[in-house]
């Protein structure tokens, strides 16, 4: 998400699941949609069957997605940037780009200011001691009018377009093959097929998931893909997009709500401690347009922020107290999960509450996590099922070899209702919010999360009310005026997220447009004076005056384009394809009849979807389709918005079998998230010559379904996938036991020797890859296994801090089966 935002403006799947039916070409890379999202993948097989679309899969393994693909290309884990940059180079050097789109809808024409440079893998501004970039040179040249300078001919040497040509020239097919191990013919076929969509007649969709994010340079993987799609003009069009296939059923909604260290719902930011006042916070984020006539929607940041504060602190938030800004906690650093577990490991954290989260399994370097958990005073697991984390203190032989007597952590397991035992809304990967209805009574003594958290909150607040204590004021300021404070209903909570008018809202002429107490129909109605509330502006409209639109169940699709505009509610403002203004040319006409979607009918923007645009702005005004960005266009070059550079660079994984063949001076992403303490836990290729990658299996969902009988039946036991060549080299028998170990830990499993994994030639050397499914552990009904993250390295992406689960080094040997 931290790459789509800087490129397009919003960090979410650009198109919808059902829109994939409109595609002509699918690239599945950095993911395995058939395996991880089977029911969404149907729209790929549908496009193939009904439109004759082609499917390409690029993956270290021949996956289930590859099983139904038209073309498969192998790749070494962690080299996606090199591969994709090779595609960018192919498109640019063969002039296979959608010129008009690139010129008008991207920042290709923008001039970069003097001082920006890129040398031997490093951008200007690198501070080696801090391992961070000073990003001040990564900026546009600003003209006298205060707007960024452009050269619409794209010829200026400092134009983004020319910089791009230069930057990517090194990624020749030979180089790609050297780095990624992909045979050149297989790589070139991918390029050729992608190039066939750079014309407005055909569209390509890219489907990715954690195979791209879980790298120390994960965000740049996605950036590379986004650039390809922009060069081909595949963003904002039906059947196009960069589609982030997200993991959990409501991970999109929960990301929206922002239970993340530095977030406020709706992609607003939690203040940092160097922003002591509301104004100092807002000032940095209320972006002015960088070009005339641009929407630059974040100009409204202040309205959304104040509305949030009104929902959070209710009547206690007043203009006088800056709507309670002081009460909000202020960040000193970002406490992402890697830092969280680093602090836990250091004994600096006393209490950990896990709500539907199994960190012992999920966080990199499980041994580090386990040691940390034992230092906690209190661990609370709020989960429908028992997790390995909740039982981390229990001895499970070689799978969890601990001595309970030595672990002083108090642990509670609180039974919570399952999905079928509660009502509420969920937001799918393509941003569609839909309601679910309670189907059964709570299981045994279980209670809903809401009841449990309300109970906890009310108890703590009561204790502060009666006994006092530190920080009582901000705690007691939080608005909790629900009808039943012990159990706020899903209905009133969704209403609260949507927002309402607190006083009669009037237009400039004094006419009342929204009565006090009425729900808001759109975030356009939000005010920054405290006269509206609304905890999450992007959801405004889901529960407007017309009622709870997430409950809509009209599956009519009059356009036949899979829009389903009256099914649930898709944020923002019920748009199904984001940036859909880009489906028409600068004059407002569809790029082609084949790709007709939203267009200017002479009076307004119309089409099967809600325009992602002010519907009445005529094409003549040249307002860009990427309304969130101050430029109005998307960014091929992302200025200082990413920590590790405005263009992608091929960085080797932190544990890599080779020296970076493109930039030998680079050792991993120079701006990656890494703690000095962890440096000794990295292995090298001498001791650990084999590349490992982790993934989930279609039969399982993370660490839940190892406790689900039927899923344990269809995939009962941890295994290690490897090529026939590696098995022969190591004397490993098909179905025999093997041990896989990294510098950090060791696991045992059955060998699945397969033709679907092949050794690759990297920079002249043979490199083997083993595949490690992640779904097994020591709690459940499936066979016990060591947590796979006992092997993975504690290094995170420079932007998202996502750990590098997808590429690290191990060694493998045949063993006699475990005794346990």
């Amino acid at each position, binding site marked *: 998400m931290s790459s789509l935002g800087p490129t397009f403006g919003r960090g979410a799947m650009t198109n919808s699941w059902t829109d994939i039916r409109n595609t002509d070409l699918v690239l599945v890379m950095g993911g395995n949609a058939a395996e991880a999202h089977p029911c969404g993948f149907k729209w790929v097989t549908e496009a193939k069957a009904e439109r004759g679309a082609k499917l390409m899969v690029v993956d270290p393994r021949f996956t289930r997605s590859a099983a139904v693909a038209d073309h498969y290309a192998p790749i070494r884990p962690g080299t996606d940037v090199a591969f994709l940059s090779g595609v960018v180079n192919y498109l640019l050097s063969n002039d296979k780009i959608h010129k008009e789109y690139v010129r008008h809808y991207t920042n290709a024409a923008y001039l970069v200011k003097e001082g920006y440079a890129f040398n031997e893998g490093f951008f200007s501004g690198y501070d080696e001691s801090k391992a961070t970039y000073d990003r001040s040179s990564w900026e546009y040249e600003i003209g006298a009018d205060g707007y960024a300078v452009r050269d619409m001919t794209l010829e200026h040497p400092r134009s983004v377009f020319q910089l791009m040509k230069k930057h990517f020239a090194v990624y020749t097919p030979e180089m790609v093959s050297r780095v990624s191990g992909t045979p050149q013919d297989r790589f070139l076929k991918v390029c050729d097929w992608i190039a066939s969509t750079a014309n407005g007649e055909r569209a390509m969709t890219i489907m990715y998931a954690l195979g791209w994010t879980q790298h120390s340079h994960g965000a740049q993987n996605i950036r590379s893909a986004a650039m390809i799609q922009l060069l081909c003009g595949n963003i904002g069009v039906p059947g196009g997009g960069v589609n982030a296939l997200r993991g959990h059923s409501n991970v999109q909604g929960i990301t929206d709500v922002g239970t993340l260290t530095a977030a406020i719902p709706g992609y607003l930011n939690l203040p940092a401690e160097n922003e002591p006042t509301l104004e100092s916070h807002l000032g940095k984020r209320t972006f002015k347009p960088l070009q005339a006539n641009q929407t630059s929607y974040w100009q409204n940041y202040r309205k959304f922020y104040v509305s949030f504060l009104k929902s959070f602190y209710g009547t206690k938030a007043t203009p006088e107290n800056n709507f309670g800004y002081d009460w909000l906690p202020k960040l000193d650093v970002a406490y992402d999960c890697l830092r969280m577990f680093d602090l836990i490991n250091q004994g600096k954290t006393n209490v950990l509450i896990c709500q539907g989260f199994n960190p012992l399994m999920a966080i990199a370097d499980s041994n580090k996590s386990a040691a940390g958990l034992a230092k906690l005073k209190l661990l609370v697991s709020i989960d429908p099922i028992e997790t390995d984390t909740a039982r981390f203190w229990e001895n499970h032989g070689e799978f969890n070899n601990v001595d309970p007597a030595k672990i002083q952590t108090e642990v509670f397991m609180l039974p919570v209702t399952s999905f079928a035992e509660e009502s509420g809304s969920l937001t799918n990967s393509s941003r569609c919010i839909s309601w679910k209805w309670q189907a*059964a009574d709570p299981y045994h003594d279980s209670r809903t999360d809401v009841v449990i958290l309300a109970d906890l909150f009310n108890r703590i607040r009561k204790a502060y009310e009666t006994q006092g204590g530190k920080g009582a004021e901000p705690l007691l300021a939080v608005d909790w005026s629900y009808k039943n404070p012990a159990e706020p209903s899903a209905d009133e909570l969704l209403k609260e997220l949507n927002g309402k008018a607190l006083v009669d809202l009037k237009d400039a002429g004094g006419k009342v447009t929204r009565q006090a107490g009425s729900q808001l129909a759109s975030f356009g109605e939000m005010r920054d004076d405290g006269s509206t509330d609304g905890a999450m502006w992007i959801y405004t409209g889901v529960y407007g005056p017309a009622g709870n639109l997430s409950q809509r169940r009209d599956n009519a699709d009059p356009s036949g384009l899979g829009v389903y505009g009256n099914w649930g509610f898709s944020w923002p403002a019920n748009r199904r394809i984001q940036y859909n203004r880009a489906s028409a040319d600068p004059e407002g006409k569809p790029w082609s009849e084949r790709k007709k979607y939203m267009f200017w009918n002479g009076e307004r923007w119309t089409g099967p979807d809600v325009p992602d645009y002010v519907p009445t702005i005529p094409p003549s005004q040249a307002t860009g389709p990427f309304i969130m960005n101050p430029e109005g266009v998307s960014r091929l070059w992302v200025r200082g918005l990413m920590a590790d550079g405005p263009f992608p660079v091929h960085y080797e994984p932190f544990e890599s079998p080779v020296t970076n063949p493109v930039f030998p001076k680079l050792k991993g992403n120079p701006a990656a998230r890494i703690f000095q303490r962890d440096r000794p836990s990295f292995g090298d290729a001498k001791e650990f010559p084999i590349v490992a990658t982790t993934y989930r299996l279609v039969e399982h969902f993370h660490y839940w379904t190892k406790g689900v009988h039927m899923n344990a039946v269809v995939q009962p036991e941890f295994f290690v996938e490897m090529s026939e060549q590696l098995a022969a080299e190591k004397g490993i028998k098909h179905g025999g036991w093997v041990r896989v170990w990294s510098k950090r830990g060791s696991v045992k499993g059955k060998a699945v020797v397969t033709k679907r994994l092949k050794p690759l030639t990297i920079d002249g050397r043979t490199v083997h890859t083993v595949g490690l499914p992640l779904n097994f552990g020591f709690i459940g009904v499936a066979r016990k296994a060591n947590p796979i993250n006992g092997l993975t390295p504690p290094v995170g992406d420079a932007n998202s801090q996502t750990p590098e689960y997808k590429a690290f080094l191990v060694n493998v040997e045949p063993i006699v089966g475990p005794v346990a």
Partner: protein
Amino acid sequence: MNIEVSRRRFMQLAGAGAAGTAIGALGFAEAEAQVSAHVKPFRLVQTKEARTTCPYCAVSCGMLVYAAPSKASSGKLEVVHIEGDADHPVNRGTLCPKGAAAIDYIHSATRVKTPMYRKPGTAKFEPCTWDFAMERIAKLMKEDRDANFVEKNAAGTTVNRWTTTAFLSGSSVTNETGWVTYKVARGLGLLQIENQARI
């Protein structure tokens, strides 16, 4: 629903001929009532149907959950079957191997039935009451908060943060639960809040 309509259209397109051959009335020459000793009775008859969303991945498939009063547990509504919601535009009634087995998640052998407590240094969980659990957790959290809450940082800026307690939030809970979670965690002054979005 239009899906039904389009199905009929398919039947015609596919050259099946008369509308009577549509699956809805599956061409059975004698469609009238016929009780059979052989064909098992349809087991969803007289169950209660509810529409929900699959708890697993972010395709968020529409599901139909069928429940019936439990025999074991004093008439509580208990799930007896789950299948895909054919009306849902994304999954169109399909489910993956996890969704199709979701009933076993509800009835999992590792489902937590009642609050459980593990005392320091012991080797087992013991059941406890909700009241005990919540009171104890609230007490320990307040102790930690009182000890470690930072009202102002070294520079004197009001920061109102509590950094010695961490909250990992689930990504499969509802938006409404997410919002309550946010409000509670942030309201307490927590900065260590994360969910699965990052991993």
